[in-house]
């Protein structure tokens, strides 16, 4: 671990889902309460700043309807109110722990009953952490300081709440921004079902996605998988995701489709040919509809149909290109006619 690394942690603090996580049910045999989660998280954060003196850290919280920065190691406010002389504690640990806990407490207290129902602002926290990484990386490149120039930024998202379909586009935009900044996004799904969006985030940025089987062993997962920076992790073979669903859901019925119909103007996806795009109100020519409807029987067949059958029921529409003629294609064409 020669180079200093920056870690941004995004903590999902949804009260509803933390309550569910801490109650013991049939599915949730090993409950994890927010209190024990936070104490394990703090140990992890402390070990990150203890790994190397130059390591930097930022912690963001995603609360219902708002996102807050809980701690950052760069803007240390002078005259820190948390600063109490304690001979037994390493001072940076003390500051970090006190600041994170007090900021969470302050924000949770101000949550009103109306806020509870709102979805957590994961997008806001994620884009804030990107803004912060952008700030420290541009600052270090202008200062041309060797120590800070070699930052290896990464983001760790600790998620408990499920995907919200409304935040699909902003999440994807943040993922592409992270890709551009060469930021790795790691996902640790502490509670709840698999998150498709976050799986894609980890896959597209080269991070790892971990769904905890035993949530009470959180600290072990964190230190084994997420403490080493990505450059070292290649040697450690951290679990990666193999099955990532890249299929899309149609905008009309939210059905997962294999073959979709896409508006050329706004890229809305439909599961069947429609005369007017519901998103941008574009009217499609009647000729296209007829052509696509003629090609539809293939679409109607379920996705699980063996490939032989689909090949046989290939439509003889003009969607078969005549340009790339090779041996295999001519046989397929012959077979379909």
């Amino acid at each position, binding site marked *: 671990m020669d180079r200093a690394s920056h870690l941004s942690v995004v903590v999902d603090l949804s009260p509803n889902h933390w309550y569910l996580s801490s109650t013991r049910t049939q599915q949730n045999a090993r409950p994890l309460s927010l209190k024990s989660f936070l104490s394990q998280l703090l140990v992890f954060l402390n070990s990150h700043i203890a790994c190397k003196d130059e390591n930097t850290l930022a912690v963001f919280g995603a609360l219902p309807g708002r996102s807050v920065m809980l701690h950052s190691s760069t*803007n240390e406010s002078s005259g820190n109110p948390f600063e109490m002389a304690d001979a037994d504690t390493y001072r940076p640990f003390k500051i970090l722990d006190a600041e994170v806990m007090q900021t969470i407490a302050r924000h949770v207290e101000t949550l009103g009953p109306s806020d509870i129902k709102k979805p957590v602002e994961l997008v*806001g926290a994620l884009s804030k952490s990107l803004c912060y990484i952008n700030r420290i990386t541009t600052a270090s490149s202008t200062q041309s300081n060797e120590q800070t120039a070699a930052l290896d930024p990464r983001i760790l998202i600790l998620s408990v709440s499920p995907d919200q379909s409304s935040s699909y586009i902003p999440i994807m935009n943040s993922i592409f921004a992270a890709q551009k900044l060469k930021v790795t996004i790691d996902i640790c799904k502490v509670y709840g079902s698999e998150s498709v969006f976050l799986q894609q985030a980890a896959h597209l940025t080269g991070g790892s996605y971990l769904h905890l089987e035993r949530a009470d062993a959180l600290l072990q997962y964190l230190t084994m998988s997420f403490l080493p920076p990505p450059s070292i992790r290649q040697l450690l073979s951290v679990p990666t995701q193999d099955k990532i669903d890249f299929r899309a859901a149609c905008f009309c019925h939210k059905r997962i489709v294999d073959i979709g119909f896409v508006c050329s103007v706004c890229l809305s996806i439909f599961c069947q040919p429609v005369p007017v795009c519901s998103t941008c109100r574009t009217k499609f020519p009647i000729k296209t509809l007829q052509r696509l409807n003629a090609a539809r029987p293939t679409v109607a067949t379920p996705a699980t149909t063996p490939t032989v059958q689909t090949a046989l029921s290939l439509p003889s529409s003009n969607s078969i290109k005549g340009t790339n003629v090779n041996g295999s294609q001519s046989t397929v064409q012959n077979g379909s006619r």
Partner: protein
Amino acid sequence: MPPRRLEPGYHDGESDSDVDIFDDFGASAKSKGKGKGKAIDRGKKEKGKGTSKEQPYAWEASYTRSWDTVQEDEAGSLQGAVEDLIARGRRRRLLAPAAAIRRTIIRHLILLLDLSSAMMDRDMRPTRFDLMLQYAREFVTEWFDQNPLGQIGVVGMRAGIGERLGEMTGNPQEVLKAISERHKLEPTGEPSLQNAIDMARSSTSHLPTHSSREILIIFGSLTTCDPGNIHETLAECVKDRIRISVVALAAEMKICRELCDKTGGQFGVALNEGHFKDLLFELIPPPAQRATAPNARGGATAPADLMMMGFPTRLPDTSPPSLCVCHSKLKSEGFLCPRCGAKVCDVPTDCDICGLMIVSSPHLARSYHHLFPVKTYQAVTDLDDTPNPSSSCHGCARPFKNAPQQMAGSSGEGMSPLGRYRCPDCHNDFCPECDVFVHDVVHCCPGCGK
């Protein structure tokens, strides 16, 4: 070869490397005569233009020394100059329409490279040819980043003929491979615009109507050696709605200007290396479709269409190896076409067997930010009407300056003296860096999550 018109109010003196970051957005809205980095090394230019010495040079009209326009402040720092650059980026963005506009998302571009002997000229370092290849590579990478559903083909013009270097493909690696081997592209002979455009036109003839057809010509020669009447070719291109853009490295030619004007493309003459890159990169963002401009823009009257697309199944690295249809190689990873079950190596592509367009959902999502841009933040000029102003930036938590800062001269418009920019939706304040970053990279406001 008339001298190029300069914009009268143009303020000179940016250093070229610094402005690149602002060029990603709204560039299509700008006029083709945009002269950036006009203050160039004069001696070097004249050496390169020995053939046309009697012509009046455009830059003689407004020759300014770039180092004079950069003002140091009392402390000798260049902070003011840097902020001036940011201000200009902001203003440029304000010019771009804030509302969601219709853009050509599915693009098909033919990159037409001049491989005539004029490209061996050394007025751009190391040679025009090497520089063109280098920038073309960067262009292709960035182009695919912003137009993930687009396709690029490469055609070279040398020794009087058009030469197909790379087929139309949606895979950046294949395009890069086509222009990677320098020794195969060695410039020779005269270029022929007509032959090359005809070849490019024929390779776009099969494309569907909803996609844009574009030709980008990088032209270093001052002559063209055509077998017939090039105006007929031009008329054909107009008929086919092909948009031609030209980046000339030597000087303006009447026919090049006409090609661009009649087809709705952009024309520019590169003044120096940085400006060459700027001109190229201006063509990267998807062009806006303008319904109000008849026959001006290539894709203006192109009808909207419904496209059939397949979302493939991704095979993991651990699956048993099988042959792919594109390279006939034994591989374990790949994507299965949902219609015919063929295995292709990379998406987006058209299935080689059944011709279905195969995309993955992130490719579609990557284009969404062109369609739903973040609203432009408003500059906060005073805090009198804000009851409880935040002390730090909502994005990166950088503390704001308390005292208003004096803005240098005319650059102050559109800039906040407090360094605060407010989102019109969520009313959060952002610092100038985050303002630029949010609009250029993230495309998603940290305050309102849109």
